[in-house]
């Protein structure tokens, strides 16, 4: 079959009897859970990655198999449970898929999450194509169960979204029925339990490192003695094409590293070059072990690698790389309800703290009306900070703008902060509610009242929540029905000096048809 890396992970999860797949949508990870659901797996969107990870821990404490998916920055949100789940360990399997985005096709940074595997102390596998995405998902489950540890499956955009041929031959033993065994010393991380837990974790990692030397998913492809290449992930594919004559050590498990295997390989060739995307994680670690290898020049830390860039690395070519002329930039759709909102923000000369979603496009022409974007939920906190210190006449122009899915993800605590520490000039938060997670491809979320597979469920009522948190001035308005009324409401709210939430509610044009169909079916 010809399938994407994401589809391959889903297929492996389904075949392995994964009891629950959970996560939060984020490019390039989103299709894993959608496909898992289509294949009959139980898949759920969580409000955010931290909650998803915690649910997955519970599944794995009950001896079942869990997969939790997220984009690279999602793991920042889930980092808190990740680090301590490494201490507690799991009884079943817990595989965390981290989908990194080198080159930032659709992300706010290009952080290299291989560092997380090291920092948290969890094993990490890195597939290079869809076949390995399938095989390594099964292997991650086996490793997780064998050592009772969460395992990171680290993918990147070109592994997640590229399609390649998969022969789904590998299988793994079926999971035992879920069961619960009380183990307070292992799972209650008070200091007296956590101290021995940390030692247990390090002992497990030492065992896994030894296993990785002899049985890990790494392979040597013999070639010329004059050039040896050590590579991981999709960088391996680019390097194979750039230097087909070279000897290769492809690393499938990149934490803990098989240091002696690497040493032996490096000693077998005259020149040994590490080809990796992003940070020089492999090169630095290998050199720290006293093995002499070449790393890439600093300019190749930025952006994706490809065959051309690997050729340059091997040739030591650091001349400037030609940039192709840009194609048409994306923009807010014609008829997008957010266009009215941005026009009003421009007209009122607002200082806009923004957030992550389609509406981030409000930063580009013709609006250029969104002035900050940091991370999910930051609009509210950043807006409050600006309000706290700017002179009153400027502070009164500050507005926070956040989408519906983003608000549920991590805007709620920002609103609590607003009520608890209100700026003296008040504040205005606009929740752009288009009834979907539009940016990532129209996923459901708690405030749509539908599950991942579009079935009705409990619905979060955003305006009720805002009022319950203590924002009395909570308004719901369709910004397109009467743009002037919207602008007046915004102007009045700014002038009031009070705390206000304006929910600009109008469903995304691209989902309106589908929404009607769903409502008819219900």
């Amino acid at each position: 079959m010809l399938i994407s890396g994401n589809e391959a992970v889903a297929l492996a999860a389904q075949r392995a009897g994964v009891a629950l797949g959970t996560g939060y949508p984020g490019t390039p990870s989103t299709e894993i859970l959608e496909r898992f659901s289509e294949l009959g797996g139980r898949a759920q969107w969580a409000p955010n990655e931290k909650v998803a990870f915690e649910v997955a821990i519970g599944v794995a404490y009950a001896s079942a198999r869990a997969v939790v998916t997220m984009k690279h920055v999602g793991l920042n949100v889930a980092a808190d449970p990740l680090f301590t789940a490494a201490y507690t360990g799991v009884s079943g399997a817990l595989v965390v898929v981290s989908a990194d985005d080198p080159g930032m096709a659709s992300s706010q940074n290009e952080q290299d999450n291989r560092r997380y595997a090291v920092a948290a102390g969890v094993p990490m596998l890195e597939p290079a194509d869809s076949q390995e995405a399938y095989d390594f998902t099964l292997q991650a489950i086996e490793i997780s169960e064998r050592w009772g540890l969460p395992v990171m499956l680290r993918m990147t955009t070109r592994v997640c979204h590229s399609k390649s041929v998969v022969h789904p031959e590998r299988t793994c033993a079926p999971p035992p029925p879920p069961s619960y065994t009380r183990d307070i010393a292992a799972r209650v991380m008070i200091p007296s339990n956590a101290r021995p837990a940390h030692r247990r974790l390090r002992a497990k990692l030492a065992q896994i490192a030894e296993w990785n030397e002899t049985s890990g998913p790494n392979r040597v492809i013999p070639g010329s003695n004059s050039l040896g290449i050590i590579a991981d992930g999709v960088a391996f594919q680019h390097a194979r094409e750039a230097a087909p004559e070279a000897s290769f050590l492809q690393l499938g498990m990149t934490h803990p590293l098989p240091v002696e295997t690497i040493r032996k390989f490096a000693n077998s060739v005259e020149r040994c070059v590490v080809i990796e995307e992003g940070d020089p994680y492999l090169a630095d670690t290998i050199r720290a072990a006293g093995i002499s290898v070449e790393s890439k020049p600093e300019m190749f830390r930025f952006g994706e690698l490809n065959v051309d860039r690997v050729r340059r690395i091997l040739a030591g070519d650091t001349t400037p790389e030609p940039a192709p002329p840009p194609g048409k930039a994306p923009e807010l759709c014609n008829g997008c309800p957010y266009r009215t909102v941005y026009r009003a923000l421009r007209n009122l000369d607002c200082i806009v703290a923004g957030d992550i979603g389609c509406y981030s496009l409000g930063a580009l022409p013709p609006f250029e009306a969104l002035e900050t974007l940091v991370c999910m939920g930051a609009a509210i906190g950043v807006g409050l900070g600006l309000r706290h210190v700017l002179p009153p006449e400027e502070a009164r122009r500050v507005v926070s703008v956040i989408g519906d899915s983003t608000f549920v993800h991590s805007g709620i605590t920002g609103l609590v902060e607003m009520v608890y520490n209100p700026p003296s000039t008040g504040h205005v938060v606009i929740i752009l509610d288009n009834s979907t997670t539009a940016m990532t491809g129209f996923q459901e979320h708690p405030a749509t009242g539908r599950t991942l597979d579009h079935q009705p469920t409990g619905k979060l009522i955003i305006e009720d929540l805002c009022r319950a948190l203590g924002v009395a001035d909570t308004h719901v308005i369709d910004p397109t029905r009467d743009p002037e009324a919207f602008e007046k409401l915004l102007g009045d709210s700014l002038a009031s000096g009070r705390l206000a939430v304006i929910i600009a509610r109008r469903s995304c044009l691209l989902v309106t048809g589908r929404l009607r169909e769903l409502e008819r079916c219900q």
Partner: protein
Amino acid sequence: MMDNRVTNIVIAGLGGQGVIRASDIAADAAFRSGFDVKKSEIHGMSQRGGFVTSDVRFGRQVSSPMVPRGEADYLVVLAPDQLEAVRGSLRPGGVLILPDGLNGEPLPNKKTLNVALLGILSTHLPIPEANWVEAIRSSLPEKFHEANLHAFQLGRRQATVHT
């Protein structure tokens, strides 16, 4: 044909034109013909009308999923005004396929332009017509089969008439 050479195709256009659908069909048609296939593109902002490209590569064995710059054998561009952004992917002597390759032959459904251009592309490739037809059928809901198969044949006909 099963030598070591890899055939490189780049398809480009704007979000909503069916660039990714077209590359899925081409990749599937090559896969059905027994080739190793890789296909890659960037998702994300493409829904919002921005520039999109997708790479399809097939041969005996394909490593990187991305067509190296200047090595595309075929460049299919659905939005001619985006040609400059992607022209550099074509190798010297490579084949450029644009909507004007349809020679003004009217498409009954504008949304099938992607498949019509695949019709032109298909005449250059060692992939049996039946595999294209199967790939089109399996990638689209049944109600769109007729219009797209019509567009595919229209593209094939134009390419044969004018070359």
